[in-house]
């Protein structure tokens, strides 16, 4: 009786009793959710257009952030370092297409997956060689990202919102909108979607695989840089960042590997739910640190009910 009460009643009573604190928890969750969503988006784009599960997405985040900070350390002005980093990411996309994807075209999926693990190891080595392995501080203020915080006072309590978090959310929303417009309205976007539907047919109408692949890898490079800046501003730039990319896996299972909407909704949902679960159930009942596994449990439950994910593409089958 006592334990049932502490699981099913007490947490909700707490939420109602201190709504301002609840809002704060949800906001914190939402911000990490945005990051999960961004990383998942990088996965989704590459998976949709080439059926490759890109294990290197996490290290691309680290590599982009490292390049940005490293360039700035070497005396490049922050606002010039951003386009330079983008140029590096573009070069990386071209190199991956030439060296890894093109020779392996038509190989089984697992071989391409292994190749992305190879890319991961290579980027770790390259990053450490050029920029060193120690932690770095993200050049937040130099990039013009505000660092103060606002205090709101809903329900007579207070909620503090860091301006850099808000910038991150707004930036991510803009990035996603731009991406959706690109995918749905432009010729290249249409070609990317077509390629995701039917490889052979895309080839037959003259869609050039190599062009599309470079574009798609470059876009996920841009997303990686955005993620790197935001995450770096919160936690510093280190190779440990790569691990957060693994959080994208449950997001993908939740949202479906092929759905842009799924990546966004899944990311936000996991971010918020794991935070709320940690504060109201994890810490009082389970001794805390539930964030490490909550997302995976949630994904497992979703997989049991809906193996294609909540937003997985409907398989159109005519009989």
């Amino acid at each position, binding site marked *: 009786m006592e334990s049932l009460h502490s699981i099913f009643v007490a947490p909700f009573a707490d939420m109602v009793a201190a709504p301002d604190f609840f809002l704060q928890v949800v906001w914190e969750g939402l911000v990490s959710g945005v990051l999960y969503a961004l990383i998942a988006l990088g996965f989704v784009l590459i998976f949709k257009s080439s059926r490759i599960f890109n294990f290197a997405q996490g290290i691309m985040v680290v590599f982009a952030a490292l390049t940005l900070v490293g360039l700035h350390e070497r005396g490049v002005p922050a606002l010039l370092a951003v386009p330079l980093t983008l140029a590096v990411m573009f070069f990386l996309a071209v190199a991956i297409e030439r060296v890894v994807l093109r020779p392996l*075209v*038509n190989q089984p999926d697992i071989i391409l997956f292994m190749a992305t693990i190879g890319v991961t190891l290579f980027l770790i080595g390259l990053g450490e060689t050029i920029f060193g392995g120690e932690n770095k501080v993200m050049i937040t203020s130099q990039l013009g990202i505000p660092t103060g915080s606002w205090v709101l006072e809903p329900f007579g309590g207070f909620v503090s919102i860091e301006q850099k978090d808000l910038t991150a959310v707004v930036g991510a929303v803009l990035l996603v909108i731009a991406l959706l417009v690109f995918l749905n309205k432009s*010729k290249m976007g*249409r*070609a990317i*979607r*077509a390629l*995701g*539907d*039917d*490889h*052979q*047919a*895309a*080839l*037959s*109408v*003259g*869609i*050039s695989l190599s062009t599309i692949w470079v574009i798609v890898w470059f876009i996920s490079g841009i997303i990686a840089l955005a993620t790197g800046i935001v995450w770096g501003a919160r936690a510093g730039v280190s190779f440990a960042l790569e691990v957060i990319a693994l959080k994208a896996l449950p997001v993908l299972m939740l949202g479906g590997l092929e759905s842009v909407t799924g990546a966004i909704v899944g990311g936000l949902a996991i971010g918020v739910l794991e935070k709320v679960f940690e504060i109201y159930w994890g810490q009082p009942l389970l001794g805390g640190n539930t964030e490490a596994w909550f997302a995976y449990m949630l994904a497992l439950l979703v997989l049991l009910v809906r193996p294609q994910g909540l937003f997985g*593409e409907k398989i*159109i089958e*005519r009989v």
Partner: protein
Amino acid sequence: MNPTTAPLADTAEPILSVNNIEVIYDHVILVLKGVSLSVPRGGITAILGANGAGKTTTLKAISNLLHAERGEVTKGSIVFDGAQVQSLSPNQLVRSGCIQVMEGRHCFGHLSVEDNLMTGAFTRKDGAAAIRDDLELVYQYFPRLRERRTSQAGYTSGGEQQMTAIGRALMSRPKMILLDEPSMGLAPQLVEEIFEIVKKLNDEQGVSFLLAEQNTNVALRYAKYGYILESGRVVLDGEAKALRENDDVKEFYLGVGGEGRKSFRDVKHYKRRKRWLA
């Protein structure tokens, strides 16, 4: 029209000539054993034959889609519009005016019909206005697609998907379309409708067609010339009219027997001998 140019056009070099090509899959499986054929400018030519005869492989060898299936042309040459094309990528080939409509239609299921058509214009560089005009043209030839323009292609009927696939190819402004089994899985009336449109496109837009068909009857009514393929070789070719009246073609492909009934044993013997001779 200058009357002297008309006969000249007939004798001019063909838009497509395939010379003695050999195709090997996976480095070991020999599928085409020296196929030669040609398509005159503005012609409709049919490749006929049973399952596994090599029709699709021939088309894919021309459109360079073999590479995606680990096949390659090991001998012979393919000349399209005056240039060797074996080493071009599908992208470059579409650019130069030759596009394939694949067997089984292969529409982009999650894209709308109109988006499907627009993907056909991927290789074009002549501006949005020209592409819009061509979209209008496609809708004129296939009014049904205009009605379904916003539906996801995966949910349209087989006939509409075939029309989408042909319309999509048209959007690349091709000189020539390689059409693989347009009749597959369609009701006879729809097959007729599709072939009528092919004929119209040929007459009005001057698009040359090379089509692979199992439906010999329909194909020989619309094509001007035909090649019959059997296990990777051309065994017979000729004007469509002559083929229609050829006794062997009647017997094996059109299903109309020759003089009277034969005993089953004779038929078997006769067919076996014929195949060996071929």
